[in-house]
């Protein structure tokens, strides 16, 4: 039975909006031109491929359902479990269910610490026990290294083969579109001379495949990133964290955009007392240190959730509601920067001749704003949207550490780090949970930063098409 959590609705709404925007841009040359500049950036395209992989995982994790149980109730209707799962959970079922008792190192076959077991003849012994699932298929443990190497190499071979096929197909499709031979197209791609940076795209895809496929092959037999304190697979936790990070990074901007656009444009367009009031509001909110305002708001929200337990039938829904509210709070506290930028730009636009002309023709305010102002400030909105994303992903981890982030039961990079930070003090050290969280976060944020830079360069009106003067170009 499908279940839609509040954030699922928001996520899929976002997908619909993005698809609509994409279709709209494709049909309008002047909107497509800056995006075409973005596709010419190698770093930007490489980042886009990585982001796409993350988004795919996040979207699979946003399709929720309650699994059907065996048997039927009296009325003959099927019975559904109370636990909410996602399609991703179903795809990586072994990762979710094959839990160990406690810590185990990456790719280990034995537990990380000694466990007390009862010997058959009475008495007890303490020893490193074989894991229940990690490497359980091995008869002889000394064969572990060889088994890992063989599995990984098989994965590499499959990845390379798959990538090769995909690359050839892509080159063939491109060659057909441009009406040239496949070989010629291939050499164009190889030299990075194509309009869209296919070389960067294909190389990044290859790198991704070379990591993902062997890991997937190994994950079927081992815990590739080890297990945490309660024996959960760290790779599974990392994959689940991706959705939380993406939700916070994108839904927050969804909350922030309408407020910032409305107030920013109103302040710049109407001027006078409306401008004064809006400026006053955003200066006030801006004066309150961000973390403290968020902390205060989250504490208040926590009280509200605790006072109204009846609103949320399942723990998953309560955690999800808290995630949604966190996005709303982050959005309500961080619209000021964009609003100020939009106000400044609108002030500038309001003085231009075509706006003056619209006024002279008696065009109504609402129409001037939607037809003439809004389309001309959209590039600022878009740049702010992609620039904010990485900051929000990083902020989530810090807020969760402070205790005002997502619900402790929600898997996120912040909760992973928070749960694992005392493990550094253990002897020998448990490093894999922290390392996994930081590496996944680093890759996601780095890709987001690089993509944001490419978008900013593409949309910046100061960047002349084609020629870039050294000083102005280097200034970014």
């Amino acid at each position, binding site marked *: 039975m499908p279940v839609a959590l509040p954030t699922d609705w928001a996520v899929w709404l976002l997908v619909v909006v993005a698809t609509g925007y994409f279709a709209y841009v494709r049909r309008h040359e002047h909107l497509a031109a800056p995006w075409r500049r973005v596709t010419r950036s190698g770093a930007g395209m490489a980042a886009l491929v990585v982001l796409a992989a993350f988004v795919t995982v996040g979207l699979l994790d946003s399709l929720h359902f309650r699994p059907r149980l065996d048997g039927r109730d009296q009325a003959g209707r099927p019975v559904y479990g109370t636990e909410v799962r996602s399609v991703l959970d179903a795809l990586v079922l072994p990762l979710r269910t094959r839990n160990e008792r406690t810590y185990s190192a990456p790719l280990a076959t034995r537990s990380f610490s000694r466990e007390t077991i009862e010997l058959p003849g009475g008495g007890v012994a303490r020893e490193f026990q074989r894991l229940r699932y990690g490497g359980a298929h091995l008869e002889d443990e000394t064969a572990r290294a060889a088994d890992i190497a063989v599995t990984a190499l098989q994965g590499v071979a499959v990845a390379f083969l798959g990538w090769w096929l995909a690359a050839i197909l892509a080159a063939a499709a491109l060659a057909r579109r441009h009406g040239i031979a496949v070989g010629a197209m291939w050499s164009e791609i190889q030299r990075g001379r194509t309009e869209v940076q296919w070389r960067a795209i294909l190389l990044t895809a290859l790198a991704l495949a070379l990591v993902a496929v062997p890991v997937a092959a190994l994950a079927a037999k081992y815990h590739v990133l080890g297990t945490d304190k309660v024996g959960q697979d760290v790779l599974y936790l990392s994959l689940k964290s991706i959705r939380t990070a993406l939700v916070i990074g994108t839904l927050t901007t969804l909350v922030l955009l309408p407020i910032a656009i409305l107030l920013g444009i109103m302040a710049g367009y109407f001027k006078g007392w409306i401008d004064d009031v809006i400026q006053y509001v955003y200066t*006030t909110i801006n004066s309150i240190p961000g973390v403290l305002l968020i*902390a205060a708001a989250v504490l208040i929200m926590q009280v509200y959730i605790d006072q109204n337990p009846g609103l949320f039938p399942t723990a998953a829904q309560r955690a999800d509601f808290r995630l949604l509210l966190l996005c709303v709070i982050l959005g309500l506290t961080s619209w000021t920067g964009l609003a100020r930028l939009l106000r400044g730009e609108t002030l500038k636009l309001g003085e231009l001749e075509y706006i003056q002309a619209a006024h002279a023709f008696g065009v109504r305010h609402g129409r001037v704003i939607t037809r003439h102002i809004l389309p001309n400030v959209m590039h600022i909105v878009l740049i702010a949207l992609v620039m904010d994303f990485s900051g929000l992903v*990083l902020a989530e981890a*810090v807020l969760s550490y402070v205790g005002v982030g997502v619900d402790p039961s929600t898997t996120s990079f912040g909760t992973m*780090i928070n749960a694992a930070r005392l493990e550094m003090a253990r002897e020998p050290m448990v490093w894999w949970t922290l390392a996994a969280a930081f590496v996944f976060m680093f890759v996601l944020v780095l890709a987001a930063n690089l993509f944001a830079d490419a978008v900013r360069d593409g949309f910046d009106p100061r960047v002349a098409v084609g020629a870039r003067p050294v000083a102005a170009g280097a200034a970014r």
Partner: protein
Amino acid sequence: MLAYIVRRILYAIPILVGVNLVTFALFFVVNTPDDMARMQLGAKRVTPDAIEKWKAERGYDRPLLWNGDAEGAARLTKTIFFEKSARLFAFDFGNADDGRSIGHEIRTRMWPSLALALPAFLAGIAVYVAAALTVAFFRATYLDFWGVVLCVAMMSISALFYIIGGQYLVSKLWSLVPISGFQPGPDALKFLALPVAIAVVGGFGEGVRLYRTFFLEEMGKDYVRTARAKGLAEHAVLFGHVLKNGAIPILTGVVAAIPKLFLGSLLAESFFGIPGLGSYTIDAIQAQDFAVVRAMVFLGSALTILGYLLADLSYTLVDPRVRFQ
């Protein structure tokens, strides 16, 4: 000049009032003191008597805005708004939920915070400006390119990683400094060395990248071309002209941040066990001590507003082109 300063100060007052109203609304209107009491006493199985007692002990048993039972001016003063919110203007913060005076805590905890924040701040500026000037000097070369790549990579690393990684590497593996703790006096040096270094490294990417933009923007201007055209050496151009003019936008940001140094750093202080205002705030958030969080929100806002004020003033002082109107 004086008139300008007075006007800027007057302009800060309504903002401070606005901040006060926002915190009041957040803490007392969205959730009533009853909710707070229930939360503190444990949500379930709380008797109304216990709630009343909790509220009376902390002075939350008054009406929010208007006390109809009292006489004269007391109608306004014997209210939660006056006693809990309006008194913040006099920096009278009242007591925390555990009964200790918040004002006293702030006065004692301010100094460890400052001992960490001030060196980190000064060292940060020096390092970022030096690094930004270097990459600006080698602009459009491989050094510049890889410098920016390094900055973007360093910006993409979580602040938590710098702290946890630094503690592991320097304290645990190399045993150079204690992992955490604090002592006043000269001993503070060994406790503060690592957090200061981590703060500088953690802000490196963002700082250098931003300052580099400022310098490069100046370098594209006509007066720099004139300076080069008349035969000035590159270092004379860089230090004599570009640094001075590029320092103006840097200065505004820097001066605005000075008052906030008193607030300390949330993460570093709690990880390194430094008894400053940052760790005080985190403890209060985790203990859900609303009185302390409210006081810190107000104090933080007041210091931020002071920072904006100082930034505006320094701007007019440094840049003769800016006129005060």
